[in-house]
């Protein structure tokens, strides 16, 4: 029907400019758009502002590679494969990055407000915590609250005028340039079908000015439209699409493949220092493209992660237990 939305992985990374604000699909170690994250690192993208409902390994890669100036979120780590985000932690200690902390529900409600076209959300979470410590407004301290792409205030308090329900936290909708989504299926016209939990994907896509969808497979649009009630993101919210099998590796994808726990543990163990990160990036990112990355991972590893289609996860995957 319409002009093709297909682009290549390289072109997709080029949509992201130095200084762009970015968000991603997925949840902690699930459905993160890794192939594109690697390509951004190869292309040496700089000064990114990540605004995420929650972070994960992809945050750690981008931060470790020096792509990120501002990280606005609530959590980063590798779940049971690495306790915290060691690259972010190192950059915070060295004052090489600005971190703006919200709570998880605050980030979710901020995106829900943005997706609804509202200027801000109203909530009663996290009252009394240091998340609302006025000294800890890091974007304010850095003089970056211009009221254009970054809100004038981190948050405001207001009393509920309708029911006298007490102090409300008003939290600004984020302004996001680009959302990069990693999903199971996208149609030729952009319709997205996510299988399993959709996390905060619908809100991420609707919030961003530009949405790029990386899918395990591009399927005929008409196939998805036969069951409109199980699709996740409508066609017109998607600007670019690309097919990229295993594009979420080392994170997992419901119904397709599990998290590569060993890869993440190795990353976590080896990237406590910048030198460690640089070595890891040399081995796994630079000089490779997506196919040579998969070849380097090898068939036995990827077959071991492959999900059983009845279970939607891999009963074979070593879970990297304690």
């Amino acid at each position: 029907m319409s002009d093709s939305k297909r682009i290549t992985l390289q072109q997709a990374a080029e949509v992201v400019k130095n200084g762009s604000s970015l968000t991603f699909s997925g949840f902690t170690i699930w459905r993160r758009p890794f192939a594109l994250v690697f390509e951004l690192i190869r292309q040496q993208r700089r000064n990114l502002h990540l605004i995420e409902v929650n972070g994960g390994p992809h945050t750690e890669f981008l931060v470790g590679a020096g792509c990120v100036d501002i990280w606005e979120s609530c959590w980063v780590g590798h779940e049971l494969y690495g306790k915290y985000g060691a690259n972010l932690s190192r950059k915070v200690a060295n004052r090489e990055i600005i971190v703006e902390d919200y709570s998880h529900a605050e980030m979710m409600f901020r995106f829900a407000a943005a997706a609804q076209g509202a200027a801000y959300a109203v909530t009663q979470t996290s009252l009394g915590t240091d998340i609302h410590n006025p000294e800890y407004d890091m974007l304010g301290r850095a003089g970056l609250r211009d009221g254009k792409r970054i809100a004038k205030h981190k948050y405001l308090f207001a009393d509920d005028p309708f029911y006298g329900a007490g102090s409300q936290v008003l939290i600004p909708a984020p302004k996001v340039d680009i959302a990069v989504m990693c999903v199971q299926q996208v149609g030729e016209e952009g319709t997205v079908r996510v299988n399993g939990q959709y996390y905060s994907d619908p809100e991420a896509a609707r919030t961003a000015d530009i949405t790029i969808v990386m899918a395990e497979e591009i399927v005929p649009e008409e196939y998805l439209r036969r069951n409109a009630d199980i699709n996740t993101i409508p066609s017109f919210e998607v600007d670019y699409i690309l097919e990229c099998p295993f594009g979420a590796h080392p994170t997992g994808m419901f119904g397709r493949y599990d998290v590569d726990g060993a890869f993440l543990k190795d990353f976590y163990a080896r990237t406590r220092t910048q030198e460690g990160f640089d070595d890891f990036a040399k081995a796994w990112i630079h000089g490779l493209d997506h196919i040579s990355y998969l070849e380097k991972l090898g068939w036995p590893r990827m077959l071991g992660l492959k999900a059983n289609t009845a279970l939607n996860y891999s009963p074979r995957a070593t879970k990297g237990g304690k």
Partner: protein
Amino acid sequence: MSDYAKAEEFGLADLLCCAASREVADNEIVFAGTGLPMVAIMLAQKTHAPNLKLIFEAGTLDGRPPEIPTSVGDARCEMGASRSSGLSDAFSIAQRGYVDLGYLGGAEVDVYGNVNTTCIGEYLNPELRLTGSGGNPDINSFAKRTVFIMVHEKRRFVENVSYITSPGWRVKKWPGGELVHRRELYGAAYRGGPSAVISTAGVFRFDDQSGRMFLDTCHPGKTAEEIREMCQFDLDISRVKGETEVPTREELRIIHEVLDPHEIFIPKIKQG
């Protein structure tokens, strides 16, 4: 009569898991995070609380995973669920007031049950940046009760945490930051707060009036005085009820054979 296990048959993780499991009543709606809380609540589901409803943060509602998910984003969370969706659903349900109990963890806890998962040291000049809040403050704000499961080290049990990530019974009133009872801040959203801390040393609860922590039970082999020595604040040990109830053999069987056979979260105790 329950068939309690002997001391050499269980580890600390088993004890914590069973103690945590006993905090929930049947039919309650529970919000649980990744790790030990997940094992504890699924243990309850398979023992005394078959009708509890389990909510995972990433978006599965009333799930019945046959084995332990590796994280709340895992495909296993969705098995047997009433609805699978996303975070907006999970947090909306929580803020709407459906959640009876939340299971959480923390790096530091203070005498008022304030928990820190954000940084060690000063926030503006941290010794170590940690994961950040995640849903800890949210679940703790929205649930009627919360239970924290923690490693007990003296450096982790402090008079005041350096950063309040998750609100306890006395919290900071901004912009000044003076400590006030959480009831004062939460208004109509006030539903309760931390009801227990289960550490590797004992089980702790909070005084209704002062909001200060007191020792409820000691884990086997620990005395109240020893536990007081493991806190930087002056722990009230005047109300100790005795020893923490130990795991039963049936609970251990469920943990190790059904829920976590691969020792993802709870190691097996090698005997003799």
